[in-house]
């Protein structure tokens, strides 16, 4: 349904785009249009039999129309995609809190930056902003497609809300940070629609080249009538125009903007908003990639894998203490401790009454339970030692060092050590350590190996100490780590690599990531991140999935590859067209050239007509490729190159020979 509509609208748009003012941005198509107009004029002005000239003129018009249609089609698809995102933002009402505290209901498009709005449960958020007070569960399925609600609260890095998402519980006050109509989605729609589409640096270079190719063929074809005049036999102008149109790179010229739009479109499909075409292209050049450990490399939840009793402590006692401290712990870590105790040490859950549970807090950095006067606590290794010493006085030297050594060993293996203590009112006993291990996401190693084969260096940003970070990096196949990273560390790391000529991509979400995001060549902000981060970044990931940076790089590379492949194909096509048209054009007065008719085309007229028809139809045949993009597999450059040169270079030489021959046979059969 949607497809048919896009198709019909594109047809209409293709007609509209025939006007020279719109076409001026595409000199190649403008040339074809001029050729079409000129040949039509010849056909109309000279009434006698025109032979194939009428058909030629028709196919020249078809070439321009088809090229226009391709562009309109790509735009239409992009727009449909963006419209889907935008739909949720239409007809929103905003409840603005005035300075005197009164509430005022206005349409969302009248909102100004800095306005504070109140959104109740069940209402839609009227504009992009930051929560200033309150906490709420928000359904963001309208932009991400994920049905799980997310929690947003004021302060911190999880305070940003997006227009069109629905508040499910509670009520929040949010400050509008973006003027409606200038949000990320609006920018993206403008990019896709072409109103703001600036040619990217690489596209500009390619345009120069295509322009020059066109210029060369103007000279090549333009000089022919002088030569034949010197040799004493004039040429038919319409045939010359046909030769010219088939030679200039109409294939890539007609599909160039479609490729750019399709690139944006593919980003939209994976729920990434790009703020400029330039950043998409830069993504293809990225060779250093930075990301946070938590959420990207590790699942965020750590699992207990072993217990290490302190000297003189029985294993059973330690296991019991560990399990007891975690019995009401709802976190993944706590559950994993219980599981380990049950499975490995056959610990059975006792019936517990009269207990008080102390959950983990940033201040104490411990959690535990108190049952019948005895407490069991687990927590950061050093915190536990402090706790014990505050009751039992300084611990024996060798006992402490054995404990700390063990804790060091755990760190070295990439784990987090948790100390465990039993406290019975007066005395505290240090019992041992729990080995909590970071869980590296499954399938990550292959992903990083792929990146390595693409020549991309991976860098992990983490708050962990250097040893732990290195171990995790080694396990996941990451090249470098920035341990205990501060915002300055991140920024200077990016500087360092950029200075050496690398292109750096980074994803982040916090306000403190903003300088680094702005400095990176490709900065991807998570949609859950703060407004500052989103402002600094040049892409926004609506799903807030840091691993998506890999997909973004792939889209960037794919866009460049598609351009390169189609250019090569377009140029390589000319070889066959020469062999079709040149003998047809010159053999009347230089019969020897008839031998160049290697395709054995039936007649000179059909040879020229077939070449022109092939030239127009190849645009349609390649449109799906332009929209879908050349297949991208992470592989070393040499391999990709060999593959693509064989398909698009050699294929580009051979395909038109077959195509023109088939069209010639069809024409012969039809006549």
């Amino acid at each position: 349904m949607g497809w048919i509509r896009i198709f019909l609208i594109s047809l209409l748009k293709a007609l509209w785009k025939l006007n020279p003012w719109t076409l001026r941005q595409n000199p190649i198509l403008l040339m074809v249009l001029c050729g079409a107009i000129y040949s039509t004029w010849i056909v109309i002005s000279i009434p006698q039999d025109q032979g194939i000239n009428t058909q030629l003129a028709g196919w020249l018009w078809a070439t321009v129309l088809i090229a226009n249609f391709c562009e309109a089609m790509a735009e239409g698809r992009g727009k449909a995609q963006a419209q889907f995102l935008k739909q949720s933002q239409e007809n929103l009402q905003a409840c603005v809190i005035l300075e005197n505290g009164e509430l005022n209901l206005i349409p969302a498009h009248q909102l100004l930056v800095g306005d504070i709005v109140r959104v109740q449960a069940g209402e839609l958020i009227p504009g992009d902003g930051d929560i200033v007070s309150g906490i709420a569960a928000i359904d963001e399925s309208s932009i991400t497609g994920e049905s799980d609600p997310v929690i947003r609260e004021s302060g911190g890095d999880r305070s940003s809300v997006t227009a069109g998402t629905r508040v499910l519980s509670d009520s929040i006050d949010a400050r509008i940070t973006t003027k409606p109509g200038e949000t990320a989605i609006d920018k993206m729609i403008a990019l896709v629609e072409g109103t703001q589409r600036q040619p990217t640096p690489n596209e500009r270079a390619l345009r120069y080249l295509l322009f020059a190719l066109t210029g060369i063929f103007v000279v090549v074809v333009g000089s022919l009538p002088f030569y034949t005049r010197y040799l004493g036999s004039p040429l038919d102008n319409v045939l010359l125009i046909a030769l010219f149109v088939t030679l200039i790179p109409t294939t890539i010229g007609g599909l160039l903007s479609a490729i750019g739009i399709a690139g944006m479109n593919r980003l939209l499909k994976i729920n990434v908003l790009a703020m400029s075409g330039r950043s998409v292209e830069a993504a293809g050049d990225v060779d250093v990639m930075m990301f946070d450990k938590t959420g990207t490399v590790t699942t965020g939840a750590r699992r207990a894998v072993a217990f290490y009793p302190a000297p003189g402590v029985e294993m059973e006692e330690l296991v019991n203490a560990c399990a007891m401290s975690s019995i009401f712990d709802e976190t993944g870590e706590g559950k994993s401790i219980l599981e380990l105790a049950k499975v490995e040490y056959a610990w059975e859950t006792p019936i517990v009454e009269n207990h008080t549970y102390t959950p983990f807090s940033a201040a104490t950095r411990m959690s535990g339970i108190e049952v019948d006067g005895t407490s069991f606590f687990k927590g950061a290794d050093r915190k536990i030692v402090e706790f014990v010493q505050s009751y039992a006085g300084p611990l024996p030297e060798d006992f402490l060092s054995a404990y700390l050594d063990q804790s060091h060993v755990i760190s070295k293996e990439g784990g987090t050590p948790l100390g465990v203590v039993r406290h019975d009112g007066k005395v505290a006993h240090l019992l041992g350590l729990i080995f909590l291990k970071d869980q590296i996401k499954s399938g990550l190693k292959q992903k990083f190996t792929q990146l390595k084969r693409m020549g991309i260096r991976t860098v992990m940003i983490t708050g962990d100490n250097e040893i732990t970070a290195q171990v995790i990096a080694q396990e996941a196949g990451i090249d470098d780590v920035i341990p205990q990273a501060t915002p300055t560390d991140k920024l200077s790391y990016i500087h360092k690599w950029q200075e050496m000529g690398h292109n750096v991509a980074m994803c982040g979400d916090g306000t403190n990531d903003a300088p680094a995001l702005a400095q990176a060549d490709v900065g991807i902000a998570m949609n859950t991140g703060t407004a500052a981060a989103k402002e600094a970044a040049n892409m926004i990931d609506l799903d807030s999935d840091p691993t998506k940076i890999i997909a973004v790089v792939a889209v960037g590379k794919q866009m460049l590859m598609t351009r390169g492949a189609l250019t090569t194909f377009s140029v390589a096509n000319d070889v066959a067209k020469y062999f079709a048209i040149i003998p047809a054009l010159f053999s009347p007065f230089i019969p020897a050239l008839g031998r160049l008719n290697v395709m054995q085309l039936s007649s000179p007229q059909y040879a020229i007509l077939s070449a022109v028809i092939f030239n127009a139809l190849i645009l349609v045949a390649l449109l799906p490729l332009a929209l879908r993009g050349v297949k991208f597999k992470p592989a070393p450059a040499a391999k990709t190159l060999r593959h693509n040169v064989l398909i698009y270079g050699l294929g580009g030489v051979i395909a038109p020979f077959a195509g023109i021959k088939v069209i010639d046979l069809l024409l012969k059969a039809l006549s």
Partner: protein
Amino acid sequence: MVKIFLLLSGIFLVCGVLMRPVGRYFWNVLMRQRTLLDGFLDPIATTIYQICHIPVHHDQKWGEYLSSMLIFNGCGFVFLFLLFQTQHFFENQCPVTDVPCWLIHLNLAMSYVSNTNWQPFAPEQTLSTFSLMVGVGTQYFLSAASGIAVAIAFVRSFKTNQQILYDQTHPDDIPTQKYHERYLGNFWVDIVRITLWFLLPCAVFVGCIYVILGVPQGWGTLPGLNPLTLGPIASLESIKILGSNGGGYFEANSAHPFENPSSATHFLQMVSMIFIPMVLFEVFGRKITDSRHAYTLLISLFCILIFSVVVSGWISGHADIWGAYEARLGAHGSLLFSILTNSSGCGATCMDHSTLHPVVQLILVCKMMLGAIDFGSVGSGFCLLISYVILTVFLTGLMVGRTPEYLGKKIEAPEIRMIVLIILLTPLSILGLSACLCYLSPTGDIRSFSRIVYMLISTTSNNGSALGESGIYTTQAALWITNIAMLMGRYGVLSAVLCIAGSFSKKMKIPRSNATLPTRGLLFASLLIGTILICNGLIYFPVLCLSFIPDVLSIAVVE
């Protein structure tokens, strides 16, 4: 075939052996390091620097380098033209035609300055011995040196590595990008050093061998039916070939027994044709500290050369058409000489090219059409080759999904704009100007059209060889048009190349990675060959179809 291959391998053996030591020496010369000849040449150079007020340590930007080159060549042109114009005070020399004498002199001056040496009139009848010695002889050195200087400046631009500097004290600030400009060297110093340290010793050495082998060097007239004027033939001959100039002392050029008396001198001439271009590749490899890149290019060129030699040798032998060659030099030697002279942009001829087999003629014209990149006329051919390399890297580099780069320098819009200018200029000159000439001339047949095309390809690519005799060469229109073609072909290309060098020198070097397009090795070599052939094929196929190809095809019909 076997004979040709033996000859060819002999030539490459000599060049290959000499290439490395001479390359090392030349590199030292260019890097202003100590060399053997310093004790003797340093005082001379210092005197020249002082007299001409040359700031020796001033490093030039591309604009300065370019304007120095243009001024230098412009002065050379004016000097030469005035010299030719005033030579009638000493000896009255002007061929009897309806073309004004000054136009002939203008054309000759342009042709010598631009390293083309297109000589539509017999030089021994047009120029005095004094003009040949002082004017032409000097220009033989200086035009070659100018070409080499530009090539060297281009190579230098790959080496520069600009770093982004940012204020260390405020790492939170987004850095402003400041570039340290490091430039292309100094044109004047380059010219002096290339001429004195490199070209002069080479020419003296080769010239001495010529004298030993019997090339005349001295004044006088040989009595006889047609009295022959002698002159400093050996010394002119050595730099004529070494500097890929190719304009002979006599009209018969290297077919003349004075210029090329025996097969030994013949062999030496072929060696000197490709010697300096090969040395330039060695210097290139040294400069970018990766000889494999240079050898990749060399091998690609070698493939094209071998292909053309094999096809020409086979077809000539098969049809037993060897053309009007000098018995003294041999059929095989003459064929190889013709191929090499058109490959290298030298333009010296030892036989009448128009008598060769049509297929060989087609090959000769195709080789010239490539713009002498195949072992390059000194300097400019190398520049053109690198331009094609950049184009190849751009086209194929996109296909690996990364902004293309060559030797760590990103290829972006400004460079492509210049490359585009280069690949647009050549067809504009060749095709556009031959269209003009066709328009200005009365109608003719395919043969005379072939000569027009050959003439414009020869002058645009600064080769200078001609396809037989033709009245069309000496018309007033042809003289004007070849003037423009030589100007565009030489200075258009060199200016664009220096502009690219300027923008490369401002870029920082990107480190290699797995994702970088490999620009050495067989894959790249074949891509380069493919791009060169397809680009030129697309541009020149129609015009060749009207000139050289019908002959080839009709011979095929007869067989």
